[in-house]
């Protein structure tokens, strides 16, 4: 019923506006990555005391980006993205403790682990839709958490995994105690992630995934296999989430059970929707907004934070369905919408 309402809004836009919008948006889209890099570097100089928080924001942004690939471009509503994030984080952490210490290799290990988990579970659960799919993704993340909790010898169980000491990046840059290397490393990985993700969503494969999101039946009628596209997309996003987890493990030196939790999955969803799903910038804006506000408010009282984020979330759904990133569109279109 409200679906009809939303469709009506899209159809109401005058055609000349629709022609002007995409060109401007593309120009802005081209500038997004340089802008992001500039903002990241500016933050590096402006807030030298908050590098730890900013490193976490960068790694989390990559994680939310992975959810954006799945949800924004594939239409897969999931509350289990942390399964891939946590697996990547633990795989990298365990590898760092026992096998290798090169940070780039650790990221690769994390990405591989996240991608594998996504591929296996995605092949199992992506035939479902709606509530059933939501429940299956929750069940997957809960089971992964239980397995991690039980494998105490490897993962440290509920105490968490510590003692991750990566060797200097490229053999040159040590991870210093101020977190400068960590932050720049995380920022660089995030930027590469955005570039790769953009390449993916603009590729024929990415377009096919959007087609599945809009109308799986039609994709099937055109000879494509919707499920195969979705499983592939899920696995690719799993690699992103795994790398994000590994990045968190490498830069923070610890991995906790909460990195494979249902609530961490839900938080990613909240961040994505605040920023705006279905656009890569939205994932980053949402993460920065969410984690900054969280940092400020949770320091006061965690329940104030819940009240605030709850109201904010309801307000976003009711009054700003496209998220913060859609505010820019409204300016471009000059549309009161």
């Amino acid at each position, binding site marked *: 019923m409200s679906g009809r309402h939303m469709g009506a809004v899209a159809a109401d836009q005058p055609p000349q506006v629709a022609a002007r919008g995409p060109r401007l948006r593309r120009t802005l889209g081209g500038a997004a990555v340089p802008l992001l890099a500039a903002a990241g570097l500016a933050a590096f100089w402006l807030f030298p005391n908050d590098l730890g928080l900013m490193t976490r924001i960068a790694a989390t942004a990559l994680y939310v980006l992975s959810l954006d690939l799945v949800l924004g471009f594939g239409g897969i509503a999931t509350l289990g993205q942390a399964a891939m994030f946590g697996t990547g984080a633990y795989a990298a952490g365990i590898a760092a403790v026992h096998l290798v210490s090169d940070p780039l290799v650790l990221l690769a290990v994390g990405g591989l682990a996240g991608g594998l988990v996504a591929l296996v579970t995605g092949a199992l659960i992506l035939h479902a839709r709606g509530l059933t799919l939501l429940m299956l993704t929750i069940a997957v993340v809960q*089971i992964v958490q239980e397995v991690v909790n039980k494998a105490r010898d490897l993962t440290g169980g509920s105490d968490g995994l510590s003692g991750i000491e990566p060797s200097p990046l490229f053999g040159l840059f040590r991870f210093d105690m101020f977190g400068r290397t960590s932050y720049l490393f995380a920022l660089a990985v995030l930027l590469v992630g955005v570039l790769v993700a953009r390449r993916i969503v603009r590729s024929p494969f990415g377009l096919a995934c959007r087609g599945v999101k809009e109308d799986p039946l039609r994709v099937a009628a055109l000879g494509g296999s919707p499920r195969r596209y979705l499983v592939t997309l899920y696995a690719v996003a799993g690699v992103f989430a795994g790398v994000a987890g590994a990045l968190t493990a490498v830069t923070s030196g610890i991995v906790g059970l909460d990195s494979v939790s249902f609530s961490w999955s839900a938080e990613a969803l909240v961040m994505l929707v605040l920023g705006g799903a279905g656009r890569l910038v939205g994932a980053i804006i949402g993460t920065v907004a969410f984690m900054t506000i969280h940092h400020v408010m949770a320091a006061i009282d965690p329940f104030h934070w*819940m009240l605030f984020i709850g109201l904010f979330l309801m307000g976003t759904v009711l009054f700003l369905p496209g998220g913060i990133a859609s505010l820019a569109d409204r300016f471009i279109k000059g549309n009161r919408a």
Partner: protein
Amino acid sequence: METLFGIVVDGVAYGMILFIISVGLSVTLGLMRVVNLAHGAFAMVAGYVASYAAQGLGLPYAVGLVAAILFTVLATLPLEKLLYRRIYGSANELAQVLLTIGLTFVIVAGINYLFGPTLKRIPLPDALLGTVAIGPKSIPVHRAFVIAMGAATVLGLWWLLERTDFGIKLRAAVDDPNMAAALGIRTERLYTATFALGTGLAALGGVLGAELLPLEPYYAIRYIVLFLAVVAVGGAGNILGSAAAALALGIVDTAGKYLIPSFGEFFFYAALILILFRWPHGFFQGRAA
């Protein structure tokens, strides 16, 4: 043998609580197609009201129970009008999830502000303490009471949906809302009534189940996954399905906790994946509601 008996009694009682709370969710999901993640929060609110009525005001248990249900239903009706009505329909799944998560957060914060973060109890009346003998065994009266209330809820809902005018209209609206509206059924009123019914059931379950699902501010978030699991397995809008799913999941969970306590909720979720993998539309994908 003793363990088996304990598992069955506790599992069935636990399953009945899951059923009473989840069936409200199932009915609203079946009719309005709304994934209401705040459903657990409604159950929690009722539990806190009953706790306050018993401990703060010294009212008897039954009065507290009724007051909690009335309060919760009356307090959530404006929410239905203001919030939920905008997000009915299966096209808005994501908006539903987010809006109701947001609402849940607000309720959790509010409950914490009013009652603090500590566990709250609803003291049971003397009549519900002690044990009752059934044949050679004896079971706690409270468990027996919960099981009886669960059975009464199944029968009551069956009667309501199969034998009353309201039930006929409700089933018609579930099958085809547009056609039902065209035939002169006031679907908006039907939605409001069904929402109230669902909330009332959540409230009933929240109060009755306070012994098994302890009341604390994170209740709303901690148990909603359980309730959703019951709905997903039982099939949305399917009352007998919800009952069977709640009992099965309740017994599996209880058995897992009794026999292999170190594995926590592993078996619950493993069972969930197996069932949903085999029957993605729920175990009982027959007629809805």
